[in-house]
């Protein structure tokens, strides 16, 4: 075969006839920054887009741990959120493609989509493959959506307050004794309004979390105290469902830095879910234990369990499982996001017919 018979691509690929490495060129001209690390998260490759974006020569990055490399980029807080997500991946490596839009407070680019996945190219050492893509437009749209939800929810809450109050006054006898039919119908109104108020509160929480406006008021606290407080708030629901909540906290647990109200919200959410799904006369168990440098809480029920194909979706928004009990479909999404805001993680294990356990961990407070 003569050279002239080759297709242009083959010519291009042939290092003898053309010194340009086509694959490398494609990588270097990719609109996304690309990084490949080994299994210890040491950088083994960075494309030109990434090097240009971080403004440092390749030799400064290669061999460096991903987090160390990012910490060396001068950013004055603009990359804090990015660091947070990268740190989460390095501590709990992704087993499949994981993707997040992360706010970065740089002048032009406001959001970056970061993707990470395990990398098993034949003939190359295993590691992780990360891409960084400008997602400012996507992030802006998300932000508008969050703002809209936030404003709309606030506007809905005011009339809801008046409706609820009026119903309660009527049921409370303000207009005199009511016929049984009126009492029944007003009772339905009240249940429905309560549900709407819960939904509005959940939507507000979600929009705050997604727009990064959820502020945590951190203080040193004992997780077991929060568990007991949540248990007290759910006592009547437990009694109605004939379920016993058993707390099994370890002694001498380290304290954590957390927002007390939000931590109680997380525990209350897990407990009320467990109560909903637990068969009556059975126990719901809450364990609090020290694990490595974290405090781990688990909430286990002996309910029907979650089918394996649905297990991955329980934390998604508005995902109510088949046969789900009344809820807003946002509780677990909010709970996990709140735990993640505390630099922790939440996960679920379930066995059909044997029950479900939800776990979360948040880092122990350092020092004395």
């Amino acid at each position, binding site marked *: 075969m003569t050279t002239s018979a080759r297709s242009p691509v083959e010519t291009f690929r042939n290092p003898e006839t053309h010194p340009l490495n086509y694959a490398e060129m494609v990588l270097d001209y990719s609109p996304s920054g690309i990084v490949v690390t080994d299994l210890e998260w040491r950088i083994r490759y960075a494309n030109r887009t990434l090097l240009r974006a971080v403004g440092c020569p390749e030799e400064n990055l290669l061999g460096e741990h991903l987090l160390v490399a990012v910490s060396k980029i001068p950013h004055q807080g603009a990359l804090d959120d990015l660091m947070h997500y990268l740190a989460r991946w390095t501590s709990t490596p992704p087993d499949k493609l994981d993707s997040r839009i992360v706010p970065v407070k740089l002048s032009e680019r406001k959001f970056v989509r970061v993707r990470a996945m395990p990398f098993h190219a034949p003939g190359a050492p295993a590691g992780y493959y990360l891409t960084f893509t400008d997602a400012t437009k996507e992030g802006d749209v998300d932000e508008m959506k969050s703002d809209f939800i936030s404003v709309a929810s*606030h506007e809905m809450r005011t009339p809801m307050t008046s409706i609820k*109050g009026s119903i*309660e*006054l009527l049921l409370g006898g303000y207009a005199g004794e009511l016929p049984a039919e009126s009492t029944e119908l007003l009772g339905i109104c009240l249940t429905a309004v309560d549900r709407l*108020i819960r939904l509005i*509160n959940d939507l507000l929480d979600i929009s705050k979390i997604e727009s990064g406006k959820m502020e945590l008021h951190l203080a040193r606290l004992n997780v077991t105290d929060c568990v007991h407080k949540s248990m007290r708030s759910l006592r009547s629901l437990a009694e109605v469902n004939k379920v016993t909540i058993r707390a099994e906290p370890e002694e001498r647990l380290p304290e954590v830095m957390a927002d007390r109200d939000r931590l109680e919200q997380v525990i209350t959410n897990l407990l009320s879910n467990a109560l909903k799904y637990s068969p009556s006369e059975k126990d719901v168990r809450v364990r609090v234990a020290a694990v490595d440098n974290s405090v781990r809480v688990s909430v286990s029920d002996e309910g029907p369990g979650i089918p394996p194909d649905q297990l991955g979706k329980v934390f998604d928004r508005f995902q109510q499982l088949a046969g789900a009990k009344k809820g807003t479909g946002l509780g677990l999404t909010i709970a996990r996001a709140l735990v993640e805001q505390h630099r922790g993680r939440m996960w679920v294990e379930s066995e059909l017919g044997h029950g479900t356990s939800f776990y979360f961990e948040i880092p122990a407070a350092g020092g004395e």
Partner: protein
Amino acid sequence: MAIRKVLLAEDEEDIRKVAQISLQFRGGWEVALANNGEECLAKAASDPPDVILLDCMMPKLDGYETCRRLKLDPSLRHIPVIFLTAKAQETEVKKGLSLGAVGYLIKPFNPMSLAAEISQILERQAEGNA
């Protein structure tokens, strides 16, 4: 402390009405109304109530600023102030307590127990001062 008269500052007409009925019906109290912070300051000065309920978000003068001014006025600073606030602003209110309010109540409030909760806050405060 026996309450006879409450001054309620709230800009939402419906909520004002529900709260007014609730305080009259359950507390047996006389209820004076204000649409905003400015009105609240004027009414407090002209006819001092036993307790002032302040919505946080109001036009003209919000609840926090109204509270601050009440506490600066030697003739009004003794009147206990309680904030009425939406759940989402709870943490803000905790800051608001440093302005001299004696407590806060979360909206949506239950009109059947609002008066009792106000009495409790005032009793706790009286015990604390005793």
